[in-house]
């Protein structure tokens, strides 16, 4: 069973000629089939955790370890991590001018699966996945994220999630900027992937709204660069009622 183990992770970032520590000892284990929600106020380091796991060059790991099925993720390049089974649905997906969605998806699937998918089954697979996400077929001919609305970008991220079938999916504020309809469609996509029981999900969010659609097994409160409280789904209800004030006192977070 696939397991992602994060142990005492410390991460810094260079900003304004100074080194700032953002993550201050994160411990978390995500197993296949589990859904963990990471909730926290802005600036608490949630997105830094997501991007550090994916290997964004902006972040420097100063100590700690990340293992995926016992393999050292931190030793892997960004593309190796993806091929090992890590997937990051980004909060702000990047435009890639001149590269069509269909070309991108096929190139990506070929890389992750280790061989080019058979064309006939692939076309069908993409078409059906797009239909489930209420995406117009013409979408496949557009350039990656170019001119996409906020909702289209997020649906495109979830489309990739469905096609790439990772072991561990990190969803970085996938709910932000979505109206209720788009949130429902995107959440249904995530749930389809979860229902296979083959993915561990790390759902990073500022709001409890998405948790009405995607039920987490565990909720972790993130503040000041680490997890300060963990519990079950009931912890989200508490956050809904009380907000993050209890965790941000003492000025550890911006």
């Amino acid at each position, binding site marked *: 069973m696939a397991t992602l183990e994060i142990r005492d992770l410390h991460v810094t970032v260079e900003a304004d000629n100074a080194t700032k520590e953002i993550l201050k000892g994160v411990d978390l284990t995500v197993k296949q089939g589990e859904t963990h929600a990471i909730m926290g106020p802005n600036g608490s380091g949630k997105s830094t955790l997501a991007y550090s796991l*994916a*290997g*964004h*060059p902006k972040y420097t790991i100063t100590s700690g370890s990340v293992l995926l099925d016992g393999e050292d993720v931190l030793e892997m*390049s*960004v*593309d190796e*991590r*993806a*091929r090992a089974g890590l997937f*990051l649905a*980004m909060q702000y*997906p*990047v*435009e*890639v*001018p*001149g*590269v069509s969605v269909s*070309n*991108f998806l096929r*190139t*990506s699937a070929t*890389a*992750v699966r280790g061989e080019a998918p058979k064309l006939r089954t692939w076309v069908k697979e993409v078409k059906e996945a797009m239909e489930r996400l209420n995406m117009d077929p013409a979408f496949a001919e557009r*350039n990656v994220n170019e001119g996409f609305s906020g909702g289209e970008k997020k649906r495109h991220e979830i489309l*990739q999630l469905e096609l*790439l079938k990772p072991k561990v999916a990190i969803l970085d504020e996938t709910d932000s900027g979505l109206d209720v309809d788009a949130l429902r469609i995107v959440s249904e996509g995530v749930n389809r992937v979860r229902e296979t029981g083959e993915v561990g999900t790390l759902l990073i969010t500022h709001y409890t709204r998405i948790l009405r659609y995607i039920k987490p097994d565990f909720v972790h409160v993130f503040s000041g660069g680490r997890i300060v409280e963990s519990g079950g789904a009931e912890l989200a209800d508490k956050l809904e009622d009380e907000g993050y004030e209890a965790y941000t006192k003492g000025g550890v977070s911006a």
Partner: protein
Amino acid sequence: MAEAQNIPVGSTTAGQIAVAAESTVATRMSAPPSFDVADFPVPHGREEEWRFTPLERLRGLHDGTAVATGAGVKVVVEAPEGVIVETVDRDDARIGTAGTPVDRVAAQAYSAFEKAGVVTVPKETVLTEPIRIAVHGEGGVAYAHQVVELKAFAEAVVVIDHTGDAVLAANVDYILGDGAKLTVVSVQDWDDKAVHVAQHNALVGRDASFKSVVVTFGGDVVRLHPRVAYAGTGGETELLGLYFTDAGQHQEHRLLVDHNVPHCKSNVVYKGALQGEQAHAVWIGDVLIEAAAEGTDTYEMNRNLVLTDGARVDSVPNLEIETGEIVGAGHASATGRFDDEQLFYLMARGIPEHEARRLVVRGFFAELVQQIGVADIEERLLAKIEEELEASVA
């Protein structure tokens, strides 16, 4: 990557849009156009038209010391039936009718060439196969003149292919009769040491269409100067360019579209990628809308993708408008670095770095390549881009 911008007429930009009574496009040249090399002083490098060019690498084309050698370039013309292919003497009346040399090297080429090539497509002849002009450098110095004339309502595609090693200065005239349609693809696929300086003059007839595709990959120094003027109303021009500038190469494209008559259109799109130390691309895009040219519709764009440190781009769009009675006029110039966030996004989907780079560069050029409309050239270009990228990954 920085986005290309639409810049409204009259606003300030990195280039210039001048609404002027007097043409600076013409006056900023250091001497008026002339067929005689003696009318141009030897450039010293600080002149506006020479300031980006490494004169010391022109192998004497600019100062009269480059003497034509026997084995300069070998020219082979393959033309479909119906096309007239001639080699003519200097006094042929068709030579020099599309434009006049505007700088010292063009005038040197005009003063020094011995025989000119003339390709003529007769009236109303529509070719289905391209005319191919292969210019192969044999290692020497050459001065050349080529004329391509399409009579009224003729239609043709001409591919001029430059390969091998040479020091070449040339003038190329394109004369389009009324209603003629000419697509010219000039490929600079030179060996590393070649030096190529040329002025292209197109004179576009009434209701005629001229499409120029300039593709520059090779050479030590390539400096091309495509120029367009109109002989009648209703003419349309499309100038497309693509360059891939490697370490140490100087590739300079200077364009002028002179809207000298009413109701003509022009569209200019040049895109380049650069990689390696001392790779230097220069793009000068001059568009002049003369007072008489009411109803003009023009747009020009230059985009550059800088793939590595150490490369340099100078991009100067310049739009000069002497009448306000136009349909549209705009320009854009953008130079962006290879975007690390794009790379991260693609790699985060499992795509290895070299493949991600290839996707982005292919994407950058793809739209332009598709507009060429000559299938074998499109394929060759894509293959060439792959080859350049392989070299950069290695």
